[in-house]
């Protein structure tokens, strides 16, 4: 198993050193927000989930046995929070997705008007395709592509076998690529 980069801070936090826990918060708050926002697409809701994640982690820290790396444990808490938020939304009858404006705009583009337009269309298509994916597939590809985690780390976080992670990421990419084919003028029946 990979050495936990947070081990020392976690030990100090477990011993009651609040400043050590604050350092862990500083280290992970943006990463967790990025992940949860990509799943929920609502900044305020995502921040609530991230805050609750840290509070739960703080409360549960004495019981954290260090069998998994701290960050995989933290991601798991955050993903459960995001899943619960989506369930609550469904119970309220709220729409699953939120307007794309809730996500930050991509960086300014440089290129010909045609390429800029196509680039924007591609971004929107990817966004829509991601939104249409089942949560397990969306989570797997976000952890892989945005967080840059290994398949092994994703398997730990999602508590599933490695093969399932591979399959989820493959299916997610296929589903997104299918939406892109007409835009990119690539043969629809061609398998990549």
């Amino acid at each position, binding site marked *: 198993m990979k050495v936990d980069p947070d081990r020392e801070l976690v030990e100090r936090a477990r011993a009651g050193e*609040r400043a050590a826990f604050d350092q862990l918060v500083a280290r992970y708050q943006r990463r967790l927000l990025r992940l949860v*926002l*990509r799943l929920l697409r609502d900044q305020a809701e995502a921040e609530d989930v*991230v805050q609750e994640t*840290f509070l739960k982690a703080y409360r549960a820290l004495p019981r954290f046995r260090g069998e998994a790396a701290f960050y995989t444990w933290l991601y798991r808490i955050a993903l459960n929070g995001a899943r619960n938020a989506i369930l609550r939304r469904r119970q309220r009858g709220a729409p699953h997705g939120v307007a794309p404006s809730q996500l*930050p705009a991509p960086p300014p583009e440089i290129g010909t008007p045609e390429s800029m337009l196509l680039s924007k269309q591609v*971004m929107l298509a*990817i966004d829509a395709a991601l939104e249409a994916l089942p949560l397990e597939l969306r989570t797997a590809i976000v952890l892989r592509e945005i967080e840059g985690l290994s398949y092994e780390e994703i398997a730990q976080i999602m508590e599933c076998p490695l093969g399932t992670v591979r399959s989820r990421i493959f299916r997610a990419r296929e589903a997104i*690529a299918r939406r892109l084919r007409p835009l990119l003028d690539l043969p629809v029946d061609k*398998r990549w």
Partner: protein
Amino acid sequence: MILLPDEDEEPVGAQVNAMIGNALRQSVADVEPSPGFAARLTAALDTLEQAGHSGRAAEDAAGQAADKNEQADGVTLGVRQGSKAEETAS
């Protein structure tokens, strides 16, 4: 801007996968917590910490009180035993 796949370059699938990855990363590249987020989180953790301290303090106080009672019981018991010993001796 996203680099779009070029059909002359192979494999297209790898390029598309790379493009999807880039697009996803770009979509959250500028994500930052809102200005009040850090303060709210710190306040919530402070509350939790204080509750933990008060909880522990309450447990400690209860423990100390229990210890005192035990000691008091012990003293009482000792006094009683002492009295009994005195009675027996007398």
